[in-house]
């Protein structure tokens, strides 16, 4: 570290005025960033890591203010600086890049124009040279065909491409400090690698300092010189990246590290030492009937119809081994936007249709009873389309979806809600917040499927069932009268899971159920899912782009790319010894912290 740091944060406290009085989001922290240094600020949501960076560039929202402390940037006191001074510094000396690059760009302005705005503002270009300089900035972030992209709108670009534009915007005026606030959250692993490599390369080249704000300790350790760990507004540990994995000092750092899925660990290893209290039932079917016995009037009845539909003479083991879901040659096509003339369309004879876009291109796989199958791939590979077809929310264009002996693919999606199979396939969605009705209490959300399809009638019985489900997913019973905004992310995830298992389904489709959660919460939710699967004898189709999580949870894995399966096999085979080049590429893109 150089003698005079570029950025020096001393005793910084940031307060937010809320309805319940003042809340300190950042409490008396000290952070230094040297010239040319890359520092990571790591922490979970609510740790104050983003607030710290907003305080540095002074873009806190109106409720927040710096209550105490100082921020010095190459000699300038940023807390005392006037708004005009700050405006000159922002973008020219200190730049930021943000999470969710698509939303970070003005949706109705050409990306080239947005770069020009910054250049013109800081007098780095004149009206005459602005376009040339903007194209140059795009070239520097390695956007192919930059002259064309200059005229593109954000919605015409991919997420990774948008992030490159945001980087171009941030680096256009050659700032000294770059603050990257979760720059790769929500991007695919290979895109994440490309974006991170680009940031590190560009900032090294120019001798810039970087602050990387992230929740991913692995990413931080892989790309930064030093790591600052924050918890609840306080800095708990500052260490060299090379040291932190080897020798974490603070218990919180250890907890974070432990909760981060890595090679060579089991699901249990993610949790802090004590094993979960609830017992693990060795016989799923037994556990299921035990659960059902508590509810002879409702769930019990469903259990009986279920056993009745299964051949009586088959043993439990055989039933378990037989495939629950068989997908054969599944295809989903979307028509390409046609260019036929209106008249031709009116007359019902357009030009011969162009070959339709195949989102899912003839895939086949099966899910055995009690098995967890991982469906892995990057955005646009067709994994979500596949899960939507299996839950029968959209109609397949071809192929068969055989669920427990019935070709449910043949039932039109709009009639499937009335099918007896509907209740046996449930889904847990990606975003625990957006997938709950904000006007429903947790209880109403959980019993919703029972009200629509279940046999339990009457307030008291429903309440009892809901409490039982809440206990099953580890949601404190006193919370079930709350609304989603009154629950934490982990609690909302539990509500989503309770809702999915309310009808005791056979197959649950988990669509990135932990992608929006902090690692420590993710660890708990993953263990909960594993435990529930054993108890209730369910099968999982686990859709994810996080290979480390897939490795922990899944028995078998399917890797998809552009609608087709490139590799499948057991989790150890596919992720331990990948055969397909694409799988290898995915695996090497995961950030590897120095060890």
């Amino acid at each position, binding site marked *: 570290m150089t003698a005079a740091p570029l950025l020096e944060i001393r005793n910084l406290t940031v307060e937010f005025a809320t309805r319940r009085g003042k809340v300190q989001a950042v409490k008396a922290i000290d952070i230094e960033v040297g010239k040319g240094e890359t520092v990571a600020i790591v922490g979970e949501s609510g740790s104050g890591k983003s607030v710290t960076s907003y305080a540095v560039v002074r873009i806190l929202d*109106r409720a927040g203010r710096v209550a105490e402390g100082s921020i010095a940037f190459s000699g300038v006191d940023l807390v005392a600086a006037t708004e005009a001074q700050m405006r000159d510094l922002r973008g020219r000396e200190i730049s930021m890049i943000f999470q969710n690059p698509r*939303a970070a760009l*003005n949706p109705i302005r050409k990306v080239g124009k947005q770069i020009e705005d910054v250049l013109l503002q800081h007098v780095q270009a004149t009206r005459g040279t602005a376009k040339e300089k903007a194209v140059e900035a795009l070239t520097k972030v390695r956007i192919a065909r930059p002259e064309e992209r200059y005229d593109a709108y954000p*919605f015409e670009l991919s997420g990774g491409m948008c992030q490159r534009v945001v980087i171009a915007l941030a680096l256009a005026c050659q700032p000294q400090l770059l603050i990257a606030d979760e720059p790769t959250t929500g991007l695919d692993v290979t895109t994440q690698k490309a974006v991170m490599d680009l940031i590190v390369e560009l900032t090294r080249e120019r001798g810039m300092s970087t602050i990387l704000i992230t929740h991913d300790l692995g990413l931080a350790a892989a790309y930064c010189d030093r790591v600052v760990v924050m918890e609840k507004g306080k800095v708990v540990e500052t260490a060299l990246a090379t040291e932190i994995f080897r020798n974490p000092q603070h218990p919180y750092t250890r907890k974070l590290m432990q909760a981060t899925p890595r090679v060579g660990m089991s699901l249990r290893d993610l949790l802090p030492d004590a094993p979960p209290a609830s017992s693990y039932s060795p016989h799923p079917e037994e556990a299921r009937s035990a659960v059902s016995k508590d509810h002879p009037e409702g769930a019990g009845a469903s259990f009986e119809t279920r056993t009745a539909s299964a051949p009586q003479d088959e043993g439990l083991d055989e039933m378990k081994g037989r495939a629950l879901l068989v997908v054969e040659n599944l295809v989903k096509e979307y028509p390409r936007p046609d260019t036929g003339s209106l008249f031709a369309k009116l007359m019902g004879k357009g030009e011969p249709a162009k070959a339709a876009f195949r989102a899912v291109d003839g895939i086949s796989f099966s899910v055995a009873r009690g098995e967890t199958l991982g469906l892995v791939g990057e955005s646009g590979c067709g994994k979500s389309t596949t899960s939507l077809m299996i839950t029968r929310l959209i109609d397949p264009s071809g192929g068969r979806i055989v669920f427990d002996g019935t070709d449910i693919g043949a039932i039109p999606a709009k009639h499937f809600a009335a099918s007896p199979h509907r209740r046996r396939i449930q889904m847990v969605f990606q975003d625990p917040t957006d997938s709950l009705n904000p006007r429903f209490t947790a209880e109403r959300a959980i019993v919703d499927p029972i009200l629509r399809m279940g046999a339990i009638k009457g307030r008291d019985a429903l309440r009892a069932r809901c409490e039982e489900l809440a206990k099953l997913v580890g949601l404190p019973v006193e919370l079930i009268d709350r609304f989603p905004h009154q629950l934490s992310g982990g609690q909302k995830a539990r509500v989503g899971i309770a809702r999915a298992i309310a009808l005791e389904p056979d197959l649950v489709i988990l669509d990135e159920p932990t992608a929006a959660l902090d690692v420590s919460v993710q660890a708990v939710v993953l263990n909960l899912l594993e435990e529930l699967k054993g108890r209730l004898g369910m099968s999982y189709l686990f859709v994810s782009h996080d290979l480390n999580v897939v490795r922990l949870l899944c028995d078998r894995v399917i890797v998809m790319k552009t609608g087709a399966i490139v590799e499948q096999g057991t989790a150890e085979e596919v992720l331990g010894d990948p055969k397909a080049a694409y799988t290898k590429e995915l695996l090497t893109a995961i950030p590897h912290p120095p060890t």
Partner: protein
Amino acid sequence: MLRLIGQRLLTTIPSIIGVIIVTFLLTRVLPGDTAAYFAGPAASPQAIIEIRSKLGLDQPLPVQFVSYVTALVKGDLGQSLTTGQPVTKDLAARLPASAELTLAGLLLAMAVALPLGVLAAVKQGSWIDHLCRVVATAGVSLPVFFTGLLLVYVFYFILGWSPAPLGRLDVFASEPPRVTGLFLIDSLLAGEWETFRAAFSQLILPALTLGIFSLAPITRMTRASMLAVLGADFVRTARASGLSGSKVIGTYAFRNAMLPVVTTLGMVFSFLLGANVLVEKVFAWPGVGSYAVEALIASDYAPIQGFVLTMAILYVALNLMIDVLYGVIDPRVRLEG
């Protein structure tokens, strides 16, 4: 773009057909007997029957409908029994009056509401924000006939600043040569400054009345939509890259906030165009709204049908314009079309 316009036009054909059928049926269901009304109170039953058959009202409904549609295709909206003129001619004379009044009112409202809404959102919780709330509430809670009469009382009766509220021009001025039918524009085109001044001074009070009434929805929508956009990620990016306040609010926030505002403007305009009967009455303004109401009272079918149909077509045209405007503002819409 042309293709988009063509497609939108095609989708409106069924609704226009629906409007034709419904207005035809509705006018027949309405109470009141046209023949009796026109024969006068002293007419004998014999005379009423004669008038009825002369008007074709003794025919079965389907036959009446077919002859109505046949005439419609030829561009004939029928004859008004009250004015004795063809409906097309009446509407052509009165529609520009309504349009001029409504446009002027809307422009006035926009000139106040847009800046007020933007300022209220930018300085949320300040005195401007409170002013915005008061103005909006007052605007909707005062009925137009009340504001209209109040304005006439103050500016004509007490202060004597404005001319008598008697139509589009005072008695001494003559109409400018007709080009658009909007007196302000026509007089400018003809270079008749005196007429322009006369038309303007007649227009100002009724336009103000309408403007005050339509302030509320526009202000509120502008404020809400600006607030939403100001909280968006890209505004944060713009701030973090040091763009000036006017650039952030003008180029980044306001253009994005315009989309819902444009929709509201269209709705307010089409609502005002037909519904400002009370203002037309107060200021003796020869617009379409009062024309339709008079026809309705007289059970005069043809003007009512003509009025509703014209409004429907105007509404379609207006929505089309808004769609096109949307495409101009938001590149994403162009793609979907």
